[in-house]
């Protein structure tokens, strides 16, 4: 049995999957995903759709914070630009979704480039405060550019359509979302096997050392903002097509904190962690809802307490993960996997 790294060729060193089992598992998972809309009800489809969107957004944020080390509290603003861009291009401009989403995402990238400029001079908590301010400025812009955004009320989004058929139900949007989740995951996974990705990690680990070995800090910090906001733009666009309405409250500071919590709980600097975090954070309120529903018999007021219970559980989850499992769910998964790999001969 193989119990160490036996990489004797470049090909084996570059492999994503070390054994065949994960490949089989992945194909099975994708096949199962393709069949889900046939069996799942609207409720679970809706949850799955939101998970898919959160995965894209969380990977984007993880590229910026987890891999490049640039703290941003402005992720909700990126999502908002993506969502409003898609909605305006798609509904008011009449563009098809396959043009609206990439265009809006490109716009978000441009926006992220501007957003990222403070990172050239600031780091750590100063950058965090700058992005916090940028979030409020963006929200203000969206609310007050009434001609385009219809202010606080927002506006309805025409559903995306494929070959004349509108994607107006959860199972149709499902395919659109997961058709973008899969390439998003693979692009990110491969990004960190390239020069660009390694440069990001170098900037995170020691910016001075990185610039000494020839990594242009300016270029790679801004590039991280661009890539991260492109992901957020796509996620925002999908949010617009999924909920078919855009309004400013959907992109409050709490959303940005949600995404931060996803990558903290999932695991910083890990693509798998972003996925785990997105799943965890999306399922958390649903589980609480289920719990409250089952409690209504004993305690009739339970349903009204969900919002506050969610805040408490959410906060406690962040605190507990930071204290006891700072590497997040991805690390738990790695330990779990390596335990079973050699089971029952652990030593």
């Amino acid at each position, binding site marked *: 049995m193989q119990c160490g790294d036996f990489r004797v060729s470049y090909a084996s060193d570059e492999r994503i999957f070390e054994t065949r089992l994960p490949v089989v598992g992945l194909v099975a998972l994708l096949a199962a995903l393709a069949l889900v809309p046939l069996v799942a009800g609207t409720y679970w489809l809706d949850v799955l759709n939101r998970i898919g969107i959160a995965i894209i957004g969380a990977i984007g944020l993880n590229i910026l914070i987890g891999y490049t080390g640039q703290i941003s509290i402005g992720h909700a603003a990126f999502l908002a630009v993506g969502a409003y861009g898609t909605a305006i291009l798609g509904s008011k401009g009449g563009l098809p979704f396959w043009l609206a989403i990439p265009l809006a995402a490109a716009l978000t990238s441009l926006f992220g480039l501007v957003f990222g400029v403070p990172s050239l001079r600031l780091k750590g908590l100063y950058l965090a*405060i700058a992005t916090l*301010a*940028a979030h409020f400025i963006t929200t*203000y812009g969206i609310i*007050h550019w009434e001609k385009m955004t219809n202010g606080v009320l927002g506006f309805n989004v025409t559903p995306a359509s494929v070959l004349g058929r509108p994607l107006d139900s959860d199972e149709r949007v499902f395919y659109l979302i997961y058709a973008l989740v899969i390439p998003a995951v693979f692009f990110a996974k491969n990004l960190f096997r390239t020069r660009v990705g390694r440069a990001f990690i170098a900037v995170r680990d020691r910016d001075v050392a990185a610039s000494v070995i020839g990594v242009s800090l300016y270029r790679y910090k801004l590039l991280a903002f661009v890539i991260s906001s492109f992901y957020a733009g796509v996620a925002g666009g999908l949010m617009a097509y999924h909920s078919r309405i855009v309004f400013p409250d959907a992109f409050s500071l709490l959303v940005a*904190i949600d995404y931060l919590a996803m990558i903290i709980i999932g695991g910083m600097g890990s693509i798998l962690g972003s996925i785990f975090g997105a799943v965890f954070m999306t399922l958390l309120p649903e589980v609480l809802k289920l719990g409250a529903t089952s409690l209504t018999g004993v305690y009739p007021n339970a349903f009204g307490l969900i919002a506050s219970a969610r805040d408490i559980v959410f*906060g406690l989850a962040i605190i507990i993960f930071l204290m006891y499992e700072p590497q997040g769910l991805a690390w738990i998964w790695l330990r779990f996997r390596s335990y079973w790999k050699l089971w029952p001969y652990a030593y």
Partner: protein
Amino acid sequence: MNDQLVFLLQLVITGIAVGAVYSLMALGFVLIYKASTVVNFGPGELVLFGAYVAWATILNMKLPLVVALPLTLVVAILLGLVIERGVLRPLIGEPIISVIMVTFGFASVVRGVLNMTWGSDTRPFPALFASEPFRLGPIPISPVHLWSFVAVMLLLAAFSLFFKFSLLGTAMRATADNQQVAQSLGVSVKGVFALSWCIATVVSALGGIILGSVRGGVDFSLADYGLKVFPVVILGGLDSVAGVIVGGVLIGVLENLSGGYLDPIFGGGVKEVAPFVVLVLILMIRPYGLFGKVDVERV
């Protein structure tokens, strides 16, 4: 005096009064940062907590003011101790992102607990000051603003004396200056961290009480006032107590003036965003603020 000037002066005066409350809330923020380099991203929730506890003790439990206010402050101190001991001490020395996130985490818990206990409806808050406006020359001034300003100034003066002369205050300044030296001279650094959190929760609670009585009610939108500490501390300097006072008043006046003069042009809401625009500008030009220590690492 013409109307234009009266309008301007009125904006400035209310700005100073509100800004004084910002100074008070920012004081707590700066003390925490100075002592332990922790940036508290949940200042709004501390304000909310104080305001809600004060509401509960004064109106809900119908305690007299002389009992209710000290009781509120004691509860605020307990909150400070719980946060410092339970949440921040285990994370000493962790990366910045972890510390930032943990402050978001406890802010969320505080918000959830408040919401669960008292609900999110607007609660009427007792007016602690007389409401009849009086005139200073042609300018009407509401006593609420005047008294809140006086109260804040007294509190800030008391804190300055505390830092200057008391043993604990000296220990806090020593810790802020150099942790290792302070520790080797027998200052309990952990005690100072805890004390700075207690002071922060107390001044935030006082800020919440003053804001609550100025607005005549408490609800969750009070937390937005807490976020104003970011422009204040960046303008004044993240580690400067003097900067807090100047920064708070400047931001208060600035947001009132921009609200008064720019709202008709931009269609409202300028007041909320102007401090953040200033914040970004200062960060780009002079990130250490007016009075901060010039040791911001340039990248």
